[in-house]
């Protein structure tokens, strides 16, 4: 159920749909571009669209925030579009609006990413604003104060939102003592201590050409893209890729944590050690996850929602981080019934692991996964995003062609093996936020 769009996104402009490139997931023509300054990028050229979509990211994310400066990467990323060079925040935003350009930055645990979207006729202006944001950010004290106050308010709100509390508790429990435990937005105390100088230093460390990954889609050719990329990124130092966090040791014992909150419905997250993206059995894990909880046909959906009405949403997903990997199951159920929902989920993990998978489930999952990639190619921004993630994962441009074969090559036996490898309830961390009946925290060790 959704409500009508809040504001009338009433585009007429139907003909604009004719922009979209005539290519499928496997047929997308990815060109590799290297600029005179040595910046590398992947490009999908599409002359029919008067738009350029750029996606880029730098190595190093919130997990590498220096000690005592949690939140510095996130706050710095927000402030990159709050004034640069000669332009204060208002002037910078107006320049974007006048060019119908939009520029945004955001940080994940492992990387600092950004996107630029601009009409191709305004690309000079778009890439110039990107250059200013990257090379000459201002961190004006009044903007730092404004964004700091907003971030602290968001932290306060998140601390009361059961879903956010569950996510935070899960990460803090699984990654206790490890860089992934920290809140990407920081702690209130650390945020209060951040200064423009510290933000500047963080920007200078992270915004470098080493480790930069770029992808572009739209109405721009290789030579022009190379010129624009050298303009936007050429002022940056070459720098170096920040060191990775150490290896993570997954938990080997089960753990249940209940966080009390005055809400009628409890939020549940159940996490198991997962599988790295570069594991040779990655696709077997994808197939297994799809069967377990990857959509409206999945076992969990059928057993928890379809048959018993225990939840509105229930799903599982693989989360491969750079240095750790999880398989996370999530649902939400009335406080009185959440214990049963957890029981049903656990029983189905065991059933999938011990009783195996049918030929039919196996074949259906493969068909879905082959088609699923194309389903996500619904805008130029999403194509740029896909190329970005392929590069982050260290894949080659022909991956889109090879992917079907990789999925086809998965054997039923390897999926069964994957179920036995991953679905180990003796290593499960369960977080419940609400006022659950019949679920209690394990005593602390």
């Amino acid at each position, binding site marked *: *159920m959704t409500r009508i769009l809040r504001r009338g996104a009433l585009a*007429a402009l139907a003909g604009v749909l004719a922009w979209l*490139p005539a290519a499928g997931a496997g047929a997308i023509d990815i060109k590799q571009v290297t600029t005179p300054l040595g910046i590398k990028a992947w490009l999908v050229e599409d002359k029919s669209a008067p738009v350029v979509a750029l996606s880029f990211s730098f190595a190093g994310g919130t997990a590498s925030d220096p000690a005592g400066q949690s939140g510095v990467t996130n706050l710095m990323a927000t402030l990159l579009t709050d004034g640069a060079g000669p332009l204060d925040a208002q002037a910078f935003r107006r320049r974007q609006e006048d060019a119908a350009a939009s520029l945004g930055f955001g940080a994940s645990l492992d990387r600092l990413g950004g996107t630029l979207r601009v009409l191709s006729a305004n690309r000079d202006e778009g890439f110039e604003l990107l250059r200013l944001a990257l090379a000459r950010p201002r961190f004006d004290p009044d903007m730092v104060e404004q964004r700091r106050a907003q971030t602290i308010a968001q932290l306060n*709100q998140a601390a009361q939102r059961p879903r956010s509390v569950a996510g935070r508790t899960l990460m803090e429990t699984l990654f206790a003592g490890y860089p992934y435990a920290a809140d990407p937005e920081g702690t209130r105390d650390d945020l209060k201590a951040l200064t423009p100088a510290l933000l500047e230093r963080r920007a200078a460390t992270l915004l470098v050409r080493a480790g930069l990954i770029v992808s572009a889609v739209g109405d721009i050719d290789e030579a022009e893209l190379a010129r624009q990329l050298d303009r936007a990124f050429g002022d940056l130092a070459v720098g170096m890729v920040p060191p990775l966090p150490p290896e993570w040791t997954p938990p080997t014992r089960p753990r249940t944590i209940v966080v009390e909150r005055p809400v009628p419905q409890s939020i549940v997250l159940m996490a198991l050690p997962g599988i790295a993206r570069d594991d040779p059995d990655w696709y077997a894990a994808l197939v297994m996850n799809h069967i377990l909880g990857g959509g409206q046909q999945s076992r969990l959906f059928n057993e928890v929602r379809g048959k018993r009405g225990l939840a509105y949403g229930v799903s599982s997903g693989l989360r491969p981080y750079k240095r750790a990997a999880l398989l996370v199951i999530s649902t939400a159920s009335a406080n009185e019934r959440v214990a049963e929902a957890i029981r049903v989920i656990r029983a189905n993990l065991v059933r999938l692991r011990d009783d195996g998978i049918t030929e039919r489930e196996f074949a259906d999952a493969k068909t879905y996964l082959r088609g*699923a990639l194309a*389903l996500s*190619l619904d*805008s130029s921004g999403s194509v740029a995003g896909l190329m970005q993630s392929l590069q982050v994962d260290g894949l080659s441009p022909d991956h889109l062609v090879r992917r079907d074969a990789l999925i086809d090559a998965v054997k039923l036996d390897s999926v069964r093996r994957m179920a036995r490898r991953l679905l180990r309830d003796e290593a499960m961390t369960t977080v419940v936020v609400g006022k659950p009946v019949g679920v209690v925290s394990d005593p602390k060790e």
Partner: protein
Amino acid sequence: MLGGLVASAVCSPAAPALAKLFAVSRRPAESFTLANGLQVVVLPSRRAPIVTQVLVYKVGSADETFGHTGVAHFLEHMMFKGTDRVASGEFSRIVSRNGGRDNAYTSFDSTGYHQTVAPDRLDMVMRMEADRMTGLRIAERDLISERQVVLEERRSRIDNVPSALLDEATREQLFGRHKPYAMPVIGYVDDIKKLNITELATFYRRFYAPGNAVLIVAGDTTPEAVRKLAEKHYGPIPARKIEARRRPAQGAVDLPQRISRADARVVEPRWSCDWLAPSYRVGETKYAYALQVLARLFGGSETSRLWRAMVVDARVALSVWAGYSPVSLGLTSFDIGVHPAPTRTVAEIESAVNVEMKRLIDGGVTTEEVERAQNQLLAAAIYGQDSLASGPRLYGAVLSTGGTMADVAAWPERIAAVTPVDVVAAARLVWRDSGAVISLLTPAAGTR
């Protein structure tokens, strides 16, 4: 007339993008109607080998009556519970095993079902969607378990969320208790608990018919192919007369009102004001486009008047917004909201908002401001067309609320035609105490 307006935009240095936005060549979407009354819209796009079918019924929660809320949404859930040809729960499973995805939504005025699949599966999903237009079978067993699912959905969306509970109360005050837009789309808990098969079946027969639906197909296909498939699958369904839908011409009569919710789950307070406002269909509809421009320039971005005044200059707010959606079969609302900065009082917030409203009404708005807002609206619309999902969403919303293909086509011109005088007149019309509800969300007791 349009030529002059576009020319003025071209000449204005303040709006360099407007001309470029208009310069984007447009080709109208194809539309035709089957003999049984089903309207079909085709939006071809060859980006990826995928196609999206959306079937939108012209019925929503506002077609329910007090004491029987939640029927439209519950029925949407039950539409996945089978026909003579497709077993309960199989619809989504079949779509998935064919490499596709599907879902559905319910709003105040419409209910939509959508699937995205490879082009060679369009035939299959059209057959299944046509099948459940008339062939739905509702089993008691399915109803009982799905009732729990709907109640869980309500807990997720409303009961676990203090701001959503306040919004529910605000709509009751604004549109008048027991009136169509005052009642929540998902329904009240007591109504959901007692909903039965007869009610669902009656609602289904009353509203689910080809003449009361719009079929939208977007993606890697052609109008010819869609017409052939639509004739094949939807064509044989007999036409049926559907009664006209009614919406009240007025909102609540006892305004202004002021409501508040103190909640232990809230740490950051929120102040908002909602006004009854005309939509594209009801009330002083000629102001709908000016109100869109007003919302944008007053509180629609970080360069807007209210943001600059309250967040940047006076620093009494952490963030502010203004919102208005004219796509409604009945009246709609215009809202302004504020997240106060720490230690700021409600009185300070209200005074700051009032000062800006008065400044706009007394002092007017500049041509430059209006053109910037127009630019932003048109740019958002153009980029929106870059997504396969947004086209069907747009046409579905407009065509199910009394709008036409021509309305969609004329939207950019109508937005561009808005003048500074129109914006002020629209603000005067809507910003009246006799149409307002002020809502305050606060922490439970004494904190902050």
